[in-house]
């Protein structure tokens, strides 16, 4: 699979033009649409015009950075004035925004070529991307399986090599779960680092916008283009963003890597546990120091998320909840249950969040530079599967198993990155989650880049990739 940065090098060496990359991207995306259903809308005319413009810029020596001329796509909850924005919902089927999302503005300013809008779990409130209105999105490693979600189209499109990067959103794992199930890299940045302006909210104090791409370095390239303060987003971090610059061979010497047998390595597929343990040993051999921690209390943070998210989601969608028949039967009760959460408990959950943020500083970040865990405790389930049975005989509910290890880091607002960690005996990808203190994106991306460099797992293409 060609990475984003490799494609950027091809453009600069004139071995390919943006128009050629874009035509190929659109052609393959359309060809695989019946099998994968990754896209909701193609923006072909605008993409071809943007590609020609990028090529003209290259010809006259204007270089806006690594995204210039690169075909990318965005989850269909990013507002685009040139195409509808459905959020995967029937309710918003006819919604035509009058402005672009901040992220779309920034991608275009960086010269990226937007080829279309990607499918997703309805209203981003779920992890299967088995959409009641627009059909199931399928996993390029095995089309009988889910790609994860809610950014399922983003994961499928990147894993199949249809685009070099895709934007997703992550409220309870919705970037990292599809990255894990589809074997791509995916970054949930620090809360507030990337503007939410012009995105359909779900849980406004938990929503994070971020990229999925073939590698950690590619994610860094996208992050550098989209991060930074935005006065139009009330929750945008005010501090200036320092671009992430990953050295050619990121040093791990002296890096303190924490792990926790409690919670983060419990109740998961034994092969995934073995993969994480193998990664820890490898990081140690490359110079890192391992720090065992006891983080069973992260379960409490997940419980906090179970109160904050439904309440915020219900407040977002309440004006539309009267249109019950236009909501999928899976997500409708989630919103309706959210309306029942007492205001006092929502506020208590936000207070607890503050306590646990302090606890994370004291008990995690004071002891390590990064925390290593699985992204998901299972590999991609079959479409329609409600529970999966682990080799131990333990039945695990798919939604809970998919979100359990990722949700806490939305509550804490810290950067959390997923990268492919190896392959299961079933042939499906398994992924590592790399987490750090707020605004330490460089640490998680550099660790991911070193791991990818050493293992080369990202080079193994999904069966549907070029």
């Amino acid at each position: 699979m060609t990475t984003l940065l490799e494609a950027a090098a091809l453009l600069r060496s004139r071995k390919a033009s943006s128009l050629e990359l874009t035509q190929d991207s659109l052609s393959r995306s359309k060809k695989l649409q019946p099998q994968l259903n990754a896209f909701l809308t193609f923006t072909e005319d605008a993409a071809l015009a943007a590609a020609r413009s990028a090529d003209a810029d290259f010809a006259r020596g204007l270089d806006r950075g690594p995204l210039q001329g690169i075909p990318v796509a965005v989850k269909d909850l990013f507002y685009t004035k040139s195409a509808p924005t459905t959020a995967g919902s029937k309710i918003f089927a006819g919604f035509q925004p009058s402005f672009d999302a901040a992220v779309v503005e920034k991608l275009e300013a960086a010269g990226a070529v937007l080829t279309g809008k990607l499918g997703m779990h309805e209203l981003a409130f779920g992890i299967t991307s088995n959409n009641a209105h627009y059909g199931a999105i399928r996993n390029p490693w095995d089309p009988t399986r889910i790609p994860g979600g809610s950014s399922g189209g983003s994961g499928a499109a990147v894993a199949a090599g249809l685009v070099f990067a895709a934007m997703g959103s992550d409220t309870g794992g919705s970037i990292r779960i599809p990255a894990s199930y589809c074997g791509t890299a995916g970054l949930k940045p620090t809360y507030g680092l990337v503007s939410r302006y012009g995105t359909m909210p779900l849980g406004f104090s938990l929503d994070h916008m971020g990229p999925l791409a073939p590698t950690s370095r590619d994610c860094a390239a996208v992050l550098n283009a989209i991060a930074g303060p935005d006065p139009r987003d009330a929750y945008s971090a005010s501090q200036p963003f320092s671009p992430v610059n990953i050295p050619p061979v990121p040093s791990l010497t002296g890096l303190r890597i924490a792990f926790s047998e409690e919670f983060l390595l419990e109740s998961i597929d034994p092969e995934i546990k073995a993969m994480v343990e193998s990664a820890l040993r490898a990081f140690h051999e490359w110079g890192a120091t391992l720090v065992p921690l006891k983080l069973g209390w992260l379960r409490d943070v997940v419980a906090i998320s179970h109160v904050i998210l439904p309440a915020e989601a219900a407040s977002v969608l309440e004006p539309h909840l009267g249109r019950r028949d236009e909501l999928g039967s899976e997500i409708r009760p989630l919103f309706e249950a959210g309306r029942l959460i007492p205001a006092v408990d929502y506020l208590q959950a936000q207070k607890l969040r503050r306590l646990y943020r302090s606890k994370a500083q004291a008990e995690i970040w004071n002891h390590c530079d990064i925390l290593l865990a699985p992204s998901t405790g299972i590999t991609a389930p079959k479409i329609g599967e409600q529970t999966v049975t682990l080799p131990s005989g333990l039945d695990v509910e798919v939604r809970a198993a998919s979100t359990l290890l990722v949700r806490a880091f939305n509550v804490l607002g810290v950067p959390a990155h997923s990268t492919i960690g190896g392959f299961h005996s079933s042939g499906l990808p398994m992924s590592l989650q790399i987490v750090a203190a707020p605004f330490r994106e460089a640490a998680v991306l550099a660790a991911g880049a070193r791991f990818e460099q050493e293992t080369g797992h990202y080079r193994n293409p999904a069966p549907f990739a070029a």
Partner: protein
Amino acid sequence: MAFPPVPDWAQLTAALYPHLSPPEREAITRIWAANYQNFHPLKSQINGEIDPDTVFLPTAPGSLGESAK
């Protein structure tokens, strides 16, 4: 610190959604109860001096009295 008992989810669901069918109300009740099963005991950690994070800043300084167990 003693907190009021966990509400009767089924009664509350029925009160707010009287027009829904029993299976639909049951689905909502189940979700609600699941959301709360681990949350309620956590509230014993809260004291009156802690501010909520309604506008969440991951690096913001703590409130008066903030402490982590």
